[in-house]
């Protein structure tokens, strides 16, 4: 059967050449469905990267009403850096805080003319390791710091973090739902296309059964045909999404996206690109399987 793979492949290609409109319809449908999926995946991936970069800049700030001696501060920093969630602790003196504040004001720096650094508190900025940059880990660290009465005024943007995580969850769930719907739609279209092909070739299938072709011999070219249509659809989807990425996303929206903090938007990683093509092939194969299961028992023709 393996050696005859070439025979079935050639028959599948011939079948496609003989029904070009149906084949194109199938390929086109899979291409559109997978391209939409690819666009969504690009959006989700880039938003995830953006939010991950935002997450890196999330810090817990422990404000200090009074600044102790350097040795004491170093001891505090050392203690906090022992937490498994903590990556680094920086001491921000009043002077440093005031300087940052002036820079942020930009042209309005004159507003703080006549004021000194004593108007702002010193603080410890606690940044977490990557895997702890989430609401649960941050809350745990904050709770532990609160138990330690040295730190009473702790800020970490908790409300914003909750919303960010909820947004990411919604994005992933929407992507999964949309993806599932698109894949199902593509499956149905491919199944119907293959069914139409089977009906159009009913006489051929009968003749095959007459001369002793087994069910597998009759069905295999259609399975290969479905897989090929899906494979070409996947390739087309990859090409289409890359074109849109290059022409629209990169060029037209590039400057707009800079504002959100994205300096480069990324196309799908290679693994995902391969999955797109392989996924197309699988959709085509499954669609053919569904169509063939409902078709006539060839042995009884």
């Amino acid at each position: 059967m393996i050696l005859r793979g070439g025979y079935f492949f050639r028959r599948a290609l011939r079948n496609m050449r003989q029904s070009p409109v149906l084949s194109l319809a199938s390929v086109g449908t899979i291409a559109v469905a997978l391209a939409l999926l690819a666009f969504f995946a690009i959006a989700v991936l880039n938003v995830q990267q953006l939010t991950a970069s935002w997450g890196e800049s999330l810090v817990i700030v422990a404000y200090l009403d009074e600044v102790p001696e350097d040795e004491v501060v170093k001891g505090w920093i050392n203690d906090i850096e022992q937490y498994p969630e903590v990556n680094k602790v920086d001491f921000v003196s009043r002077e440093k805080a005031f300087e940052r504040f002036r820079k942020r004001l930009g042209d309005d720096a004159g507003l703080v003319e006549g004021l000194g650094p004593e108007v702002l508190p010193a603080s410890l900025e606690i940044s977490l390791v990557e895997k702890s940059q989430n609401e649960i880990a941050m809350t745990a660290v904050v709770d532990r710091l609160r138990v330690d009465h040295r730190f009473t005024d702790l800020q970490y943007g908790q409300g914003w973090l909750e919303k960010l995580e909820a947004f990411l969850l919604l994005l992933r769930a929407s992507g999964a739902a949309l993806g599932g719907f698109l894949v199902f739609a593509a499956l149905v279209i491919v199944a119907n296309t293959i069914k139409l092909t089977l009906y159009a070739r009913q006489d051929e299938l009968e003749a095959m059964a007459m001369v002793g072709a087994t069910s597998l011999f009759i069905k295999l070219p259609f399975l290969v045909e479905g897989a090929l249509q899906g494979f070409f659809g996947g390739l087309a989807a990859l090409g289409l999404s890359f074109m849109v990425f290059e022409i629209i996303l990169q060029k037209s929206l590039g400057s707009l996206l800079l504002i959100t903090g994205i300096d480069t938007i990324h196309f799908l990683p290679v693994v995902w690109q391969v999955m797109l093509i392989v996924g197309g092939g699988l959709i085509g194969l499954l669609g053919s399987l569904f169509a063939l299961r409902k078709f006539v028992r060839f042995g009884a023709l």
Partner: protein
Amino acid sequence: MIQLYNVCKAFQRDQYALKDVTLSVEKGEFVYLTGPSGAGKSTLLKLLYCAERPTRGQILVNGRNITRYGVSRIPYLRRNIGIIFQDFKLLTRRTVYENVAFPLEVQGRKRFEISKKVYQTLKNVGLEHRLNHQPLQLSGGEQQRVAVARALVVDPLVLLADEPTGNLDPEVTLDIMELFKGANARGTTIIMATHDRSLIRQFPRRVVSLDSGSLAMDDMPLFGGPTEKTG
């Protein structure tokens, strides 16, 4: 070669296409299956290549009880049976060569073997010059000859023909019958359904008649005589 024992076939309750048919066909025989329309000729042939299953009774082909065959074994039965229809049932999208080659491809024969066999078979039916034509480019008689070639290319044990000359004019009919005679002379058992009495007169062989699904007559006319075409 073929035995039917008390075979019945009902498509609906109390509506029998075949009733209690018991019949035996020896290897190398040529049998006409006759009867009016609706007598059950086509149904009997369909039972022999398992396109239908008998409601009751047993059918043996070459010693094997085909009524017990599962779906997966039927293709292997059909590889030893050549089947010819009134409407040819050729693959119109394929060439003459491809139509005749197909049964050998199904059996997994090698390309060189297929090529040689197909050419020889088409030469036997006088169509070796039409290899690359498509069926719809041929006349009715030529198409039926391609169908005969397709049936004979696998050297079948049995040839089943369901009204093979029904759509053909008398001259072409004679050509087709000569092909059948040749195959029969080489040892192929032939069962041919027909209601053409003139054909039976011209080529007298054993006649099995059906009437309303029952066996009405099983007669062996004398060979030779003025009704057979000679030369």
